[in-house]
């Protein structure tokens, strides 16, 4: 059944007007789902899988907003968020966390996140949150 191995590049060519986002995430299912859905909503989604790479990628000027998973290999998402803010990166950062603890939201916001969403990610809610934050901070 060779058709099971069809090569399927997850990225479609982004529209010229696509707004660029950075997704910092190491979970494959989340990466594929978020990327596929946000592309249909007119975003160009770049993905990095670890915190250290995210530090430089998030600071790039054409990245309008950052989606930050908290459970990352190496440096965790809260740490990355704090460092980005310390570097003077002001763009919106949406924190995503798998085990929603009562204290998570406060910790995320204290670290400098603009908004917080618990996993499993609801794609429409995520996109609506992104749209709202980009309207406030174009």
């Amino acid at each position: 059944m060779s058709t099971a191995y069809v090569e399927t590049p997850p990225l479609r060519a982004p529209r010229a007007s696509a707004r660029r986002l950075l997704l910092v995430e190491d979970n494959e299912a989340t990466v594929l789902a978020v990327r596929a859905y946000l592309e249909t909503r007119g975003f160009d989604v770049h993905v990095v899988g670890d915190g250290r790479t995210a530090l430089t990628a998030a600071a790039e000027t054409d990245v309008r907003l950052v989606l930050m998973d908290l459970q990352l290999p190496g440096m965790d998402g809260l740490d990355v968020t704090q460092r980005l803010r310390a570097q003077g990166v002001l763009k919106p950062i949406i924190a995503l966390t798998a085990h929603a603890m009562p204290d998570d939201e406060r910790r995320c916001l204290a670290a400098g996140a603009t908004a917080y969403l618990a996993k499993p990610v609801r794609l429409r809610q995520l996109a609506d949150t992104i749209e709202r934050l980009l309207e406030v901070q174009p």
Partner: protein
Amino acid sequence: MNRVLLIDDDPAALATTAAQLQPLEVETTWLAGGVEALEHLEQSPTELVICDLMMPEVDGHAVARAYKAHSRWRFVPFLLLTALDSDAAIIAGLEAGADEFVSKPIEGAVLRARVRSLLRAAHLYRQSPPVDRSALIAQAALTTREREVLDLLLLGRTHEDIATVLGITERTSRFHQANLFVKLGGESRLDLLRIFA
């Protein structure tokens, strides 16, 4: 019992398909559209996916691309079910990664035969002898960097992603890929997947 994932934005169509599959004694899970299908990627793979093509927001092509890019769902037979039956629609569906393309309306007996055929093929594939991956890699004398690139290529990552993750340029990533093709005896990423699947 085989589990089948049914994806369609039309509840009546879901019910029809489920009823048609009933004689096969499969367990069906229903999802109300492409967005729900993307959200379902983190669940354990079923034995088959039957997906409608024309859905708002996220269509069957996008669902097929995402499922076929996933390291585990990739191996689940994916059947696109659609009212379209033009050659262009069939080609686009298969190019998006679907394993089978069926035009509605379809006789229950024909749909069941197609489903059985896909399940049979998947079963045969699972019985094929496993590849000794570490022996292959040792034999090919891959460098550490080439192994890293290989792992990411097998996960379906783009060169852009690989470059970012490994802190190299896209050109270097492609260069490593070319060396992998030479060392492992392949001509495309598809060949790498065949070698290591």
